[in-house]
């Protein structure tokens, strides 16, 4: 045993200089790869911005160039005027804000029922909830459309917003997992003091659940901003379109005005970039939570 340890120590010291040389080479290699990868991921975005600022005659030049000879800020003005951009923006904001409010509050309430109240049948119903996450939306989307048709809600944002007030299985799951990490003593002592469950939920659990609530808010805003199939199915009038649908329709009508198309795309993307920079920490934490990783 002893000689083994001493033998290793000697060889470690001898090879230290070899290790540090090998390590340097390895790290150069790593940085090189990361730089190339970063270029691959960022270049399309740079190209998008670059194209958005070009005049039409520079779009099809033989050798692509990143910096336009004539920077056309007017492309943005034209894009905003060609389509009812602010109408689309308003619709998207209504959808994002109201649906996110609905899903956050409802998922929060439901998660409490699945975590902090001990009742027979709880685990069975939670298992059912988990199973629904595997269901492809195509199976339910047609009858749901028919329901909304009979309600007269087609061609409005209602079919997109109302269902969120019934909670989302994924967010319920995340919130429940989060609540389970909160010790039961907090709720139990409040129960002893005579508080009812509703009071406990809002006065004790809510402040402690801020991190997961913010995560859900950020995720859902991105999800609704992005939603295309929902608006495609339910919105018929241009005045009701969201940005995702409006942008696609814009391309259908002006498929060769790439500079204006890119400008419109940039405008649709900027709010998400701003959201990302303000909520980076929340977003990154949320991703690891959704991957099921213990913190």
């Amino acid at each position: 045993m002893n000689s083994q340890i001493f033998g290793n120590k000697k060889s470690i010291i001898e090879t230290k200089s070899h290790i540090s040389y090998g390590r340097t080479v390895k790290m150069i290699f790593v940085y090189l790869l990361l730089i190339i990868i970063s270029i691959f991921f960022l270049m399309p975005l740079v190209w998008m911005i670059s194209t958005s600022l070009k005049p039409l005659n520079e779009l099809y030049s033989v050798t692509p160039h990143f910096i336009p000879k004539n920077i056309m800020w007017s492309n943005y003005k034209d894009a905003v005027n060609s389509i009812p951009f602010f109408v689309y923006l308003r619709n998207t904001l209504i959808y994002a804000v109201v649906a996110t409010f609905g899903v956050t509050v409802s998922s929060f309430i439901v998660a409490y029922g699945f975590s902090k109240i001990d009742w027979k049948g709880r685990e069975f119903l939670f298992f059912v909830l988990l199973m629904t996450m595997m269901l492809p939306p195509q199976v339910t989307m047609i009858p749901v459309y028919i329901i909304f048709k009979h309600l007269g809600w087609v061609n409005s944002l209602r079919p997109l917003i109302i269902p969120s007030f019934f909670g989302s299985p994924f967010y319920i799951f995340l919130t429940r997992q989060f609540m389970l990490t909160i010790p039961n003593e907090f709720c139990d002592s409040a129960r002893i003091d005579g508080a009812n469950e509703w009071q406990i939920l809002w006065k004790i659990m809510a402040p402690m659940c801020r991190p997961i609530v913010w995560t859900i808010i950020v995720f859902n805003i991105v999800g609704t901003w992005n939603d295309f199939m929902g608006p495609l199915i339910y919105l018929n009038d241009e005045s009701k379109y969201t940005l995702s649908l409006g942008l696609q329709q814009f391309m259908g009508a002006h498929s060769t005005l790439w500079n204006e198309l890119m400008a419109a795309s940039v405008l649709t993307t900027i709010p998400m970039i701003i959201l990302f920079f303000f909520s980076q920490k929340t977003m990154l934490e949320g991703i690891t939570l959704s991957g099921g990783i213990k913190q």
Partner: protein
Amino acid sequence: MISMKSKKLTKYDIKNIKRGLFFISPWLIGFMVFTIYPFIASLIYSFSVYNGVTASKFVGLKNYIQLFQDPKFYTALYNTFYYAIIAVPLGIVLGVLVALLLNQPIKFLSFFRTAIYIPVIVPTVAVSILWIWLLNPEVGLINWLLSLFGIKGPGWLADPKWSKMALILMAQWGIGQSVLIYLSGLKNVPKELYESADIDGANGFTKFFHITLPMITPLILYNLIMGVIGSLQYFTQAYVMTNGGPMNSTLFYALYLFQNAFQFLSFGYASAMAWILFIIIAIIVYILLKTSARWVFYGGQ
């Protein structure tokens, strides 16, 4: 069903059940209206001819028989599986490799991490439009990059042989989400494992294949299942970029389903397609989970 063990329900039990049901009632109601009812209704639709306006007509298995004789059905299945089988494993391999790079002791981790993740938050329609432009055979950036290496780029979205590959390539731009998940998993691997391996004289490859890789197999399984389910529902990009063309080479299953439902107004036919998709997904997930025991490593061993 709900298993009642031996004792009867006490008053306290019933009180708690009422409380529990009250709190989960938003989900429970939504579940019955938006999940259970449509689940059963779509099965019934699949046995009917229905256009959403006039009354539906029961036709038994006619929709299913028609589907199995529909060449586009098989084209859609082929396209969807082609995409899933290539894009998902490729995304996993690249995702793990990039995460390994980010896991190294590097400076500027924030910058690299942000650069890789930003494409994920660009709205899908914007991504689609951008990549149509990037993949333009004559003036697109992709073919220009290839020409720098002396390669003449293909027609991508205009070429039936390359259109799916174009979409698979575009999909890799969005691996940032899974990279971050793998990175967290890598950081959670206990350092002691690596240290004792070092003492035993293990080299880099051994450490990777015997410690690192096994420890992140649960995450790989998660991304594999979510990736397969997601790719079998691939819709937006196909609708926006190619609408199934050229020559149905990008007619994905979810797109053909959508066309049957909302363009041809054949709700019965589309519902039959939906149920077949459901069964396919169920079988695949079952197989993935069953075979996962052989290669997924759960901590504690």
